[in-house]
């Protein structure tokens, strides 16, 4: 199986979907001539022409509104928002129109929004956010956060097949840093099915996106002290694999939730609440969360490092849980 970067896996996935289904097209700022701000769509314009690779004006609400309308009319748009941060500009089209359409009129809105998210490169408050939690709170939207190249391609195919608006958060920090085996043929990965990054017995660590790698490094540190950590990569937040988390917590009785998004009302709070509701009698320690503090993301590399959860933060929380 060929090894590909996370970015290449997304790029290949896009190309494969466009070959497979004529209704699939991409639109977004600079996705055509320039090949996308992160070069995910390089070569698509040459291959599929300007009717299927559309350079949009600098207006997120126009992009999402256009995608919503074309999806209603039977096409399969995949829109790129240059930075997930700016999805806020399209809030009305996304939350008021696209998310509600099926419930108001019974018509599907099969669109995919690609949302490059996450920090770790001193992008500051407008270019580093991880806003996935906010959209899990909007009924009608699906939220996907792949961590590996294999999942990136498989979840993209599932997103294109899905009749609902799907927010596909691709983590910028993983684009060229992460490589993995990706099949050439088309495959799908079901939404709401977590991936066990590693099995363990003592503590359950639930996370997603780039934090999967932070979690794995911290778990390595704990391993040397004889504490085995089970890491669950949720892969999708809406829907999320509650069953996998409950099963793991029933085994370990201790739960740490890790996410890059800010703490208050982050999706970790939802996971913690559901575990307490459904598995209270399995718990042997308070549920712990590690998340970014409730402030915008700073530019300064030192401050950003203090802001984004680091391996040592996770390792120290795991140690405390192990000792509890």
């Amino acid at each position, binding site marked *: 199986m060929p090894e590909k970067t996370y970015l290449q896996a997304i790029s290949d996935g896009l190309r494969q979907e466009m070959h497979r289904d004529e209704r699939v097209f991409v639109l977004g700022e600079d996705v055509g001539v320039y090949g996308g701000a992160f070069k995910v769509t390089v070569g698509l314009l040459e291959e599929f022409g300007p009717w299927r690779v559309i350079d949009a004006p600098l207006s997120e609400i126009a992009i999402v509104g256009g995608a919503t309308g074309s999806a209603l009319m039977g096409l399969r748009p995949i829109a790129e928002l240059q930075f997930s941060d700016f999805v806020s500009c399209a809030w009305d089209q996304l939350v008021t129109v696209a998310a509600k359409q099926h419930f108001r009129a019974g018509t599907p809105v099969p669109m995919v929004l690609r949302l490059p998210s996450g920090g770790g490169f001193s992008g500051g408050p407008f270019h580093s956010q991880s806003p996935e939690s906010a959209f899990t709170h909007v009924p009608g939207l699906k939220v996907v956060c792949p961590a590996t190249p294999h999942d990136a391609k498989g979840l993209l195919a599932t997103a294109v097949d899905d009749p609902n608006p799907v927010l596909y958060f691709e983590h910028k920090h993983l684009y060229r840093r992460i490589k993995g085996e990706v099949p050439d043929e088309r495959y799908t990965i079901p939404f709401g099915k977590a991936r066990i990054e590693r099995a363990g017995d003592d503590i359950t660590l639930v996370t997603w996106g780039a934090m999967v790698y932070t979690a794995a490094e911290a778990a390595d540190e704990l391993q040397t*002290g004889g504490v085995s950590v089970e890491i669950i990569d949720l892969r999708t937040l809406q829907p999320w694999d509650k069953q996998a988390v409950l099963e793991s917590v029933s085994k370990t*009785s201790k739960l740490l939730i890790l996410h890059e998004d800010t703490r208050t009302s982050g999706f970790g709070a939802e996971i913690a609440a559901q575990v307490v509701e459904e598995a*209270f*009698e*399995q*718990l*042997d*320690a308070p549920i712990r969360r590690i998340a970014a503090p409730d402030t915008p993301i700073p530019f300064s590399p030192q401050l950003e490092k203090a802001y984004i959860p680091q391996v*040592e*933060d996770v390792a*120290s929380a795991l*140690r405390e849980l192990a*000792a*509890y």
Partner: protein
Amino acid sequence: MATQTQIEVVMPQMGVSVSEGTIVKWLKREGQQVLADEPLLEISTDKVDTEVPSPADGILTSIVTLEGETVAVGTTIALITTAGEAPVEQEPGSTTSAPIPPASPEPVAAQPADRAFVSPVVARIAAEHSVDLQRVSGSGHGGRVTKKDVLAHIATAKTSQPEAAANEPLPAPVTSSAPSGGDRLEPMSQMRRSIAEHMRRSLDTAAHATTVFEVDMSNVVAIRSRLKPEFLERHGVRLTYLAFVARATVEALRNWPWLNAEIRGHEIVTHSYINLCIAVAVDGGKGLVVPAIRNAEGLNLLGMARAIQDVGDRARSKQLTPEDVQGGTFTLTNPGGHGSVVGTPIINQPQVAILDTEALVKRPVVISDDKGVDAISVRPIMNLCLSFDHRLIDGAYAVQFMAEVRRSLESWGEERY
């Protein structure tokens, strides 16, 4: 007939690892009226001394536990009788309903006695297997029985013989003899017993070694005398030398993180934060409490001075909470006020080092100018003594940390806060 309710006052749980407390003083007498939240008595535990408020309005009908007695957490120590709702006068024959019985006594805040927290999963497993948790030894935080402990207990109980009570250790022999001649006999206070146990355990745990550094405090003395009135007038904060040493210590700890660490089994836990403990003498030197300043790494000189003043004041007025004396990562002790010049402090477990600030003394010292010419000058010198746990900290590491603290204090600049 007024509906009366009797409320039990119990020895409160003052922190997870505290299992008993001593009555220091009753602030109310039997028969006296008390109001809810009004201080009822003073207690002393091995963590803190504190006042206990009354749980309700009523009459203190009975004091069960007398001053000086020590009882387990959750034990009833007094009874308060509250007057219930005013009874409604009933016309004879106007109703056929049975008379309402007086409400049964309802213990308030009664907690399971002398045992740490039981987690939901442990409670469930214990119930399913009819395990008496009092018989399970706990390996968790504060001796808590963990899921693994209770599962292991069930596994061994299945395979082993009925437990032999003979295995239980015998209590240490106590020789009780009347004091002879002019000797005076008094019981050890809870705090004294706790200090005794802690100091003994620290010496049994850590490999103590001490190093002493002389620090020329000329710059600090000059800056303190300039800032002192300003801090006092504008902020109401007393600026002490200890605040300067605390600031220099916190800065140096960032570069020497193993001194802000602890040993857990075969692992070294290095803390990302500094909870700086300040040893505070209380009761005229007959007692000692060591409250922690949380996240001391985030405090400037003013903040540090204010925090030191705050914990000191609250320690002396017995206003500390259990949280104040937990979670410390490094300790400062300051015996220099009475003229001591060298000390070998005992480490505050589970920390790995303690820094002692000694008296500021004017001494003749040899100083060299830029051209290398020596001269004798009178300088304010302070000795700093660091006791460190040689299991983790080697001498080379400790002295480099101390050299940085000294450099930091000796080069203290006007602009530095």
